[in-house]
């Protein structure tokens, strides 16, 4: 269905090709997963499928890309619109109309299909993707998962043979991601559609893939083949695969189910360790943290309260987003705020930095009411890295950004730069913030926020768009912050991140606190929030591969 013959892509102004000598054949009805770090050329590969590279982006493409027998050399993206459907990363950016139904019809109108056909296909697509309730809704009012499904539907109506998706679930909460993936697998199985998708969150999609294409980046050869085989060589892998490496399973399992079926032995071994250890002396218990669990999850001393929220109600135009929240935030504690989109996570963070005024109740951060404190004073008490870290950055180079942060915070020159170098070493000072990778940009924003040394640091969805490497870096930075006595609050959907770094988890639902407790207890109790390792090893309380590795190493 899709053939790449010795394809290389070099963008104008770059000396090295972004994609080099790619040979690839994707057959009809396959779900092909493209894996690679940020900047490894995933999007370029995807966009080459429908000819956006090079017709739209410019650059030099050598070799040949053919889709359903059509050569992209002679076919522009619009000529492939009936063969390839492309869904971008942020569905909102690709919407041309403003109502669900019109959006579904747009592609067909462009192709000039007769009205009766359009009518029929719109109804079919609404049913296929479970959108019929939403047909007259304005696109802007839909949730993220719904928008993504509309975007998929809008390219499906032209009956393409290939569907290309760029990170379809990265911005979604676990439930919404499931909606989208359920829709996708249904398309592959029922309609025999060929699906090519790129995704950072491998733990969500790997189990559905028939083939994995791994882009090592930096001009190295592309690896493609059976998912299990590729996972053995890939340096990006979901927790189940990492667990397989620790446990010595080959080929690695791809889903929790496969892993669980093989994990009997491992579970017995760990159970044995746990029993042996809990029988041990108390000093060993203290050393290993919780009786059965890893060091970093040890509850910190809850002596100093950094912030307190009491009976907090926040409403937008009369609709309450938070309904009476009580929380206190302590030094040295990493707290994860979880819950589906719209549950009130962001509102709580905004209330803590005074971006929204509480309708009733009180917010107290280091003795200040954030909504009534001057911004210049507030940044010394609490800092927030917003969902889009780029919002915080507006200088034209890293150096200028850091200098500005020093001035804003009134600290000696070079403070911010020093922080940034420590968190992300080796970034040239003259680099424009927009040219940084997602991870570096997040780190720069974090450094800017930390320049004023706020005891309380808040991060909104920090792992959006981060690959596993960048995420590991973030985990170590967050642990460092907590160890240095900062209070850290994360609003996140990323259960793996929570398992790695959080001491305490607060689950919000419908603006209320649904659960509040130690990470291990809350996360394991709910299947939606359990990380993969916990699912594999349940009922044992290990949450991360790191914990298991440490446990096994100390035992041997």
């Amino acid at each position, binding site marked *: 269905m899709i053939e790449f013959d010795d394809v290389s892509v070099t963008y104008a102004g770059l000396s090295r090709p972004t994609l080099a000598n790619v040979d690839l054949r994707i057959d009809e009805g396959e779900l092909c997963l493209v894996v690679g770090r940020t900047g490894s050329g995933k999007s370029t590969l995807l966009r080459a499928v429908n000819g956006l590279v090079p017709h739209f982006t410019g650059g030099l493409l050598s070799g040949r890309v053919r889709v359903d027998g059509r050569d992209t050399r002679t076919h522009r993206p619009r000529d492939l619109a009936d063969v390839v459907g492309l869904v971008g990363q942020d569905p909102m950016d690709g919407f*041309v109309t403003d109502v669900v*139904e*019109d959006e579904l019809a747009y592609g067909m109108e462009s192709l000039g299909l007769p009205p009766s056909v*359009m009518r029929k296909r719109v109804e079919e697509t609404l049913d296929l993707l479970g959108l019929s309730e939403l047909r007259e809704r304005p696109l802007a009012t839909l*949730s993220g998962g719904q928008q993504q499904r509309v975007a998929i539907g809008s390219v499906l109506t032209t009956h393409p043979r290939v569907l290309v998706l760029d990170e379809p679930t990265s911005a979604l909460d676990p439930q919404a991601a499931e*909606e989208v993936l359920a829709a996708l697998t249904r398309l592959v199985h029922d309609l025999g559609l060929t699906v090519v998708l790129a995704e950072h969150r491998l733990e969500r999609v790997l189990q559905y893939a028939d083939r994995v294409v791994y882009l090592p980046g930096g001009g190295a050869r592309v690896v493609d083949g059976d998912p299990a085989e590729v996972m053995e060589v890939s340096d990006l892998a979901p927790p189940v695969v990492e667990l397989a490496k620790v446990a010595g399973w080959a080929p690695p399992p791809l889903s929790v189910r496969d892993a669980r079926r093989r994990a009997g032995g491992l579970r017995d071994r760990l159970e044995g360790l746990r029993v042996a250890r809990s029988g041990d002396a108390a000093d060993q218990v203290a050393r290993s943290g919780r009786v059965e669990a890893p060091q970093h999850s040890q509850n910190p001393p809850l002596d100093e309260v950094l912030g307190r929220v009491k009976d907090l109600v926040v409403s937008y135009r009369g609709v309450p987003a938070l309904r009476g929240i009580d929380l206190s935030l302590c030094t040295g504690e990493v707290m994860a705020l979880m819950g589906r989109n719209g549950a009130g996570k962001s509102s709580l963070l905004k209330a803590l930095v005074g971006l929204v005024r509480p309708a009733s109740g009180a917010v107290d951060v280091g003795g200040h009411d954030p909504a009534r404190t001057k*911004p210049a004073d507030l*940044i010394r008490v609490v800092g927030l890295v917003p969902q889009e870290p*780029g919002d915080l950055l507006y200088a034209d180079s890293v150096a200028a950004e850091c200098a500005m942060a020093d001035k804003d915070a009134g600290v000696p020159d070079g403070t911010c730069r020093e922080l940034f170098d420590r968190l992300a070493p080796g970034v040239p000072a003259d680099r424009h913030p*927009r040219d940084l990778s997602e991870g570096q940009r997040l780190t720069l924003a974090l450094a800017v926020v930390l320049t004023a040394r706020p005891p309380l640091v808040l991060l909104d969805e920090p792992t959006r768009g981060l690959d596993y490497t960048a995420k590991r870096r973030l985990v170590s930075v967050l642990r460092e912050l907590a160890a240095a006595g900062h209070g850290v609050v994360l609003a996140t959907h990323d259960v793996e991140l929570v398992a790695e770094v959080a001491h305490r988890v607060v689950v919000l639902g419908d603006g209320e606190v649904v659960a509040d407790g130690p990470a291990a207890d809350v996360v394991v109790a709910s299947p939606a929030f359990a990380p993969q390792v916990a699912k594999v090893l349940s009922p044992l309380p290990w949450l991360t591969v790191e914990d298991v590795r440490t446990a096994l190493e100390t035992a041997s």
Partner: protein
Amino acid sequence: MRPVHLPSYSRGLHPGAWWLWAIGLAAAASRTTNPVILALVLVVSGLVVAARRSDAPWGNAYAAFLKLALLIIAIRIVLQAVLSSGAQGVTVLFTLPEVPLPEFFAGLKLGGVVTAEAVLRAFYEGLQLATIICAVGAANALASARRLLRCVPAALYEVGVATVVALTFAPQLVSDAARVRAAHRLRGQSGTGLRALSRTVMPVLEGALDRSVELAAAMDSRGYGRTTDSSRVDRRMTAVLTFGGLLGVCVGVYGLLDASASPLLGMPSLLLGAVLAAGGLALGGRRTRRTRYRPDPWALPEWLVAGSGLVAAAGLFVTGALDPGVLHLPGPLVVPPVPWLPVLAVLVGLLPAVAAPAPPRSVRPSVRSPQPDKEEVAA
């Protein structure tokens, strides 16, 4: 009778009908400075909006336009008071301290006496503009601007798309700007002054540019422009005819609305322009093979709504020809007359409040509970 002809059959009215109605009211208002008639037009537009607006986001547009209208009246009165001169009337209300201006500004004056005549005249003129603006606001609140753009002729399709994109971007720019300003707060800046402005503008524009490139890519991959192939001569011909025609229509409308323009300017150029434009649109329509999904029907309620607006306009135009004295007061201080013909004509403009079908009430989206959708997928 097909259900689309029934006013009781709930559906969205053709946006063109609302716009014609609103243009009728605006044209009526443009013909008079009689405050009674103007106030009546204002009330009519407000009542119809209250009766027939939908719960869509644009349904609240009228309030914004009303505020703008009040602002315009206020500015007009204040400027008139400050810049007024004694020549405008004899009834002195109060005297402002006068600022001496250099010789150069002969004929201008700042401060001094403020007369009731000047203030009232400013109020009436401001009211006229405010009424026109409210009529436009009513159309915005009642009809989705985008649905109207879906009705543009095929030849103007590209222009329509560009406008739709611009319409999407405007609200997004506003929300982007709010986000960036929030970020300023997070960096400890109070967010006022020129520097803060420049720090806001750059990220917002960059974001807009990124988004438009993304959108262009999406449109290209979805087949935009695929069906338009035609010779260059054809394209030129279409462009010349269409734009020549539209220009003619504009000149014609101006001639008709401006009572002081020569009668030759009005109807003839309007007709000529309309013919040219129709030719251009027909020619251009031949070259695209785009089809249209569920076009809005034009049925009895549309005729009634559009007609009621036109009756209001016609009533004022006829009065203007027969008895211009009642539309423009001889002096600001006289009690305004209440002529029966224009009043009745404007009242006909109330017809849409009953003749237009009620907009379908969308079930309020429960943003906070996406569960039902999940069940659907699972089912």
